[in-house]
């Protein structure tokens, strides 16, 4: 019974922490202006939340179910395109589809925005985002049927190949009316245009929206991982033969995990399109999958909070903190011959290699943030008592 109360309290604290974080992001969104030096923080939050969701969804598959898939970029591509295609307003369509006759002539944000006003636009964006996830999940189902039977590294290479096939299909000229061929999609509902009119004041939502999407999705993944299905996934990861012998249908559960992971990969793709204001197939190369995988490894395979931390650190380091390494001066050292374009990524990949080789468990191992913080607090609380005892001697 004490257990139950403690769990309830923990859940409540987590909920409050998440809400406080969201409120903070909303506030930062208003305070920091694009001209400010701290604007980088918002960029990091936007991109970081996109990658955090991508990393967590990959972790669900690689870390929690033990299915080593490298097709993430492909599913994010599907999500980004689905979102973009269904969110381009009608008056922008002809400029976007310059060389083609656009086949999809529906924009959910516009359609619902016209009918219901501002709330409708938001609902339309939500529908497009969900659709992005669903289409990615449907593709995942189709590819999962043949490839999920494959063993670890064969599965990795098959999914990697699938992502490349998807990239080619989306760039095919014959599908131009839908995908705009190898040209980029733009002018759809995107973060920089998200605003909330509230009693005369205008609130900017450009950072809040992607962070909110990531937070909600990650929360759902946390719920899933801790449910009976999540436990079954972990059993499959730990010992497939034992899992099957204990009545867990491998094909069904692997498929569930794969489709769920790809659903959220699709959502993160949509979110990425929103943040970058463009969608282009050529950005979703296997290098993107590798980067996401390295974020997962950095944070710790099998830890959701680890993936979030990994993604945020990865983006902060590569976009912000290590920027000086590329532009001549870093930590006050001025050496333009060494600190030139690309040095940042070299340093960064060396750090990654060090983590991979010497800190194989990553930052969090397979633990979660509340647990680690709880331990820290407890240790901190017991320290003064120890000192006192020593003083008495």
């Amino acid at each position, binding site marked *: 019974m004490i257990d139950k109360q403690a769990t309830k309290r923990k859940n409540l604290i987590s909920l409050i922490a998440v809400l406080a974080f969201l409120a903070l992001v909303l506030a930062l969104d208003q305070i920091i202006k694009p001209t400010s030096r701290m604007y980088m923080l918002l960029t990091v939050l936007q991109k970081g939340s996109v990658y955090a969701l991508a990393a967590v969804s990959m972790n669900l598959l690689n870390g929690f179910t033990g299915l080593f898939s490298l097709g993430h970029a492909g599913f994010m591509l599907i999500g980004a395109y689905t979102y973009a295609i269904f969110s381009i307003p009608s008056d922008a369509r002809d400029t976007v589809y310059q060389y083609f006759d656009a086949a999809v002539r529906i924009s959910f944000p516009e359609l619902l925005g016209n009918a219901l006003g501002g709330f409708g636009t938001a609902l339309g964006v939500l529908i497009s985002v969900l659709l992005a996830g669903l289409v990615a999940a449907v593709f995942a189902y189709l590819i999962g049927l043949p490839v999920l039977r494959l063993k670890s590294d064969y599965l990795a290479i098959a999914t990697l190949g699938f992502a490349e096939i998807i990239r080619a299909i989306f760039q095919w000229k014959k599908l131009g009316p839908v995908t705009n061929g190898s040209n980029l999609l733009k002018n759809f509902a995107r973060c920089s245009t998200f605003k909330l009119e509230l009693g005369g004041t205008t609130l900017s939502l450009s950072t809040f929206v992607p962070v909110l999407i990531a937070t909600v999705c990650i929360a759902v993944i946390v*719920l899933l991982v801790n*449910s009976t*299905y999540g*436990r079954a996934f972990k059993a499959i990861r*730990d010992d497939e033969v034992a899992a099957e012998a*204990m*009545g867990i249908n*491998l094909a069904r559960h692997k498929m569930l995990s794969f489709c769920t992971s790809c659903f959220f990969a699709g959502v993160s793709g949509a979110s990425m399109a929103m943040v970058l204001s463009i969608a282009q197939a050529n950005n979703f190369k296997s290098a993107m999958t590798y980067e996401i995988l390295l974020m997962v490894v950095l944070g710790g395979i099998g830890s959701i909070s680890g993936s979030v931390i990994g993604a945020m650190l990865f983006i902060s380091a590569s976009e912000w903190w290590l920027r000086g390494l590329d532009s001549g001066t870093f930590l006050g050292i001025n050496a333009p011959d060494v600190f030139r374009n690309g040095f940042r990524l070299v340093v960064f990949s060396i750090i990654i290699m060090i983590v991979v080789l010497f800190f194989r468990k990553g930052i969090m191992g397979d633990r979660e943030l509340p647990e680690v913080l709880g331990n820290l607090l407890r240790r901190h609380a017991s320290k003064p008592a120890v000192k006192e005892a020593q003083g008495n001697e």
Partner: protein
Amino acid sequence: MSEKKNVLRLDNITMQFGGVVAVDDLSMEVNEGEIVALIGPNGAGKTTAFNAITGVYEPTNGMVSFLGAPVVRNHPQGKMKKQYKGSNAEKFASDPVLNPTPDKLTALGMARTFQNIRLWKTQSVFDNVLIAKHMLRTSNFFSATFRGNRAEEEKQREEVLELLKIVGLEDVQHELATSLPYGKQRRLEIARALATKPKLLMLDEPAAGMNPQETDELTAFIGRIRSEFNMTILLIEHHMDLVMDISDRIYVIDFGKLIANGTPEVIQNDQRVIDAYLGVEDDA
């Protein structure tokens, strides 16, 4: 024997790998409430037979029936049709082939343990047993994720605790499964199998790697499980003491073939069994 209900029945099970016949025309039955042992020297084909029953392998020929209904059935097909060295190749040829995956058989009520313990190593003792309850869920993916299954989850957790108390592991329930001593890991594996509420418990060499004292404890434990749960048990073992102590009936195989069956007393005095275990000098 006929007054008792038949739980498991094997008809002419043959398992051939390439040219090697590992199990040859094995027929046996296990009745309700019995403890039946399948014994034989190392390499006799015990574990192969076990794997053919539980769906890990497809038997090359033969049929397994569970609670009176056929659950596994095969006959030599494809390449094997020419290579087949066993007998009764035609017996099941006209019947439809049944090749369920192990989880389907577990769902029907067969639960097993493994010779080389296979616990989920990153999970706690409690969770190892709880995961086995997954099979009995009524919730679906969405209701489980969004916690629409609170009552069921509560009930399952209580049942798991109950089970852990019975097998004497409730004091270590929060420990990592693999941190337990060997004997307790065995017990946990049995508890995990029991969590699926089986009608037949199948133990694959439960005493493998145990010292005499641990084996004695295990013998008592298996006896207790039988009486506590009124469980039917099929046991594979080559620890003679354990088998003779608790089995109602024993089947003995050697080189894949059934060489004797009967009560422990009969088996103990069977010359072929003694020969198989001690070896016969051919050129004496």
